[in-house]
């Protein structure tokens, strides 16, 4: 067994960490995350140049990575910088394009020339593929997709839609052909509502259920890794603050009640890191059920740990932790809102309960 990253992954992680530390400091991050386009096209182009998008795709599909550990390497760094760029939407789109042999599109996304997003959630059916109601009529789609991550900046939207046969298919819509309503999310970065009204669409696959589930699981692992990166940073910020903040004539880090709380959440961060590694390994297992169980377990634990860490970090910072100006508040928001993406703690618990052997007969 070897838990150390390969040389290639170490290099991509290091170069991404350096790049984001230099080019995406918190002031720039907050400006991009909440204002204007919620995305910085120049920085996106540089990320593509660094090979970050290529790292998310296997060699067979035109990239040079694509394994679970490649995803976690990239997203842990995204989390350390709480980078608002639409990496999640493009990751899921790349997985779907790869699953259905769309080499041309993959090449363009890896090069940074095009961006895509995956539109699956609907307001009456979020997190539930069975309830998807956007319908296919001939070569058009009609309906609405909600909170599409990266939908604000995508050139192409991959839309999960239902055909007359009831099959869940995958269709590509040019963003220019749809009504796209962009907005900022409460923790920063962009999303969009997508309104489709007999909108022209290209069929990628008439039955894409399996590839959609796999892409969502890849997205969940990415979010877990992002949370681990963000938790590592907020832990250091909290520790530093406790050591620096003086009350009652001493650094508050000397109060044992606070020491224990920081220790408790540090333990949860290690648990979160471990289960993310486990899920990343299962992502490549070729066993959809084992993959889905491991991913649900990971995202459940991440949801719980993220909430503990975010809330405790804010509390231990006192009023400072409540301010927009303090970077930690944005890390806390990101950690809380990760739980709202691709199924929350309870959703993952339901999945874990149904896939584990808990309820098998005695």
């Amino acid at each position, binding site marked *: 067994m070897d838990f150390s990253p390969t040389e290639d992954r170490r290099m991509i992680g290091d170069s991404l960490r350096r790049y984001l530390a230099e080019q995406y400091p918190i002031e720039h991050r907050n400006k991009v995350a909440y204002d204007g386009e919620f995305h910085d096209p120049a920085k996106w182009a540089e990320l593509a140049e660094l090979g970050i998008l290529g790292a998310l795709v296997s060699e067979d599909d035109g990239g040079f990575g694509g394994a679970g550990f490649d995803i976690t390497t990239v997203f842990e760094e995204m989390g350390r910088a709480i980078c608002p760029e639409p990496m999640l939407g493009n990751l899921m789109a790349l997985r779907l394009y790869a699953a259905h042999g769309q080499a041309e599109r993959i090449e363009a996304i890896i090069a940074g020339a095009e961006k895509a997003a995956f539109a699956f959630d609907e307001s009456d059916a979020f997190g539930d593929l069975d309830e998807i109601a956007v319908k296919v009529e001939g070569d058009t789609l009609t309906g609405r997709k909600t909170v599409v991550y990266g939908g604000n900046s995508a050139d192409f939207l991959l839309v999960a839609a239902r055909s007359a046969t009831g099959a869940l298919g995958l269709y590509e819509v040019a963003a220019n052909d749809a009504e796209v309503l962009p907005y900022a999310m*409460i923790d920063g970065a962009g999303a969009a509502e997508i309104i489709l009204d007999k909108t022209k669409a290209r069929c990628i696959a008439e039955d894409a259920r399996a590839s959609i589930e796999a892409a969502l699981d890849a997205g969940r692992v990415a979010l877990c890794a992002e949370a681990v990166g963000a938790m590592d940073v907020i832990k250091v910020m909290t520790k530093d603050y406790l050591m620096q903040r003086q009350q009652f004539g001493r650094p508050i880090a000397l109060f044992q009640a606070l020491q224990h709380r920081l220790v408790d959440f540090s333990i949860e961060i290690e648990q979160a890191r471990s289960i993310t590694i486990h899920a990343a390994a299962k992502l490549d297992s070729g066993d959809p059920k084992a993959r889905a169980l491991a991913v649900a377990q990971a995202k459940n634990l991440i949801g719980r740990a993220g909430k503990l860490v975010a809330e405790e970090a804010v509390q231990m910072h006192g*009023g400072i932790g409540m301010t927009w100006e303090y970077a930690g508040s944005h890390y806390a928001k990101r950690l809380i809102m990760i739980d709202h993406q691709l199924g929350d703690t309870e959703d993952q618990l339901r999945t874990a309960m149904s896939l584990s052997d808990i309820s098998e007969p005695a």
Partner: protein
Amino acid sequence: MDLNFTPEEEAFRQEVRDFLKDKLSEELATKVRNGRDLNRADMEGWHATLNSRGWLAPGWPVEHGGTTWDSVQMHIFEEECARANAPRTVPFGLGMLGPVLIKFGTEEQKATILPRILSGEDWWCQGYSEPGAGSDLASLKTRAIRDGDDYIINGQKTWTTLGQFANKIFCLVRTSTEGKRQEGISFILVDLDTPGIEMRPIKLIEGGFEVNEVFFTDVRVPAANMVGEENMGWTIAKYLLGHERTNIAGVGASSEALSQLKALARKVKRKGKPLAQDPIFAARIAEVEIDLEAMRMTNLRMLSGVADAQGSVSSMLKIKGTVIRQAINDLSRRALGALAAPFPSEDVIGNYAIAPAEAASNAANYFNNRKLSIFGGSNEIQRNIIAKETFGA
């Protein structure tokens, strides 16, 4: 033991309900229910409505414009106002400075200041915390130095809630650096129009503006503005902090938030069924409901004067009350799932609502209400108070 309200108390409840039904506009109640920011006119309007009924400062003595209500009536009033989604009154004049002046003020201070609090002519804010003096309030450094008939104030206050609307501030200032730190603090009233004062807004985690920093540079204040004797400020502050905590359990507000949570859980769907029918989520709601039910009783026990350990009961209620409220906020955010994501000002894009209107601010309110366990003496400080009482040191 009889846990029922008396017929007189029930009649009082009905009187409060009738008043709220008659005087609280649907528009304002909706704004409160939906967790939207209230503007100055909203707050001033409700203040005037309560004042015209004589219910603005129920805890004050009648001769100063208060009521004869006992603590159970106060509780009923709070509960009904929360249930009707009435705005909470701004506490700095009514709940804090008023009681301080009634206890420690001169006759002249009472006669000039109290009526102006009720009329709304003066909007008071609080100058307590400083960047270096939060939980350790006694370490405050803002100096007031006597100069003839005036004091000259230099220093900085922070976390001044709704200071942007205020024209007056009451401050704790250091008038002596000798002896124990607590014995060199005074309580003084300052007109915010005085030259040398600058107020700067602090943007909060969820993007809202409700607290401020206040800077004092050579601010000249008449010595007559001091409340109580010089260096008596700590006694006043302790009295005031006790007052601040009497309704901090927020039973009424949490009850209303819980019923809104249940309504939301019945409305939103997971896996094709109402979320309220999901056993996992229903269990989470049931747990917080149990905690709230217990706290309702604890609160009533304290109000009835039965509960012992007077000092630490209010600390206990502050801890439990804020934790329960935050747990309800947490579930109210979670109930929205993916739809909680939009920035609160963007919950409706064009003609397309994303989350239900009454819940669109749930995530923002969750983040904002993390303050509950920090302000008014953080929950850690409350634990210290209980521990000190328990162990006697």
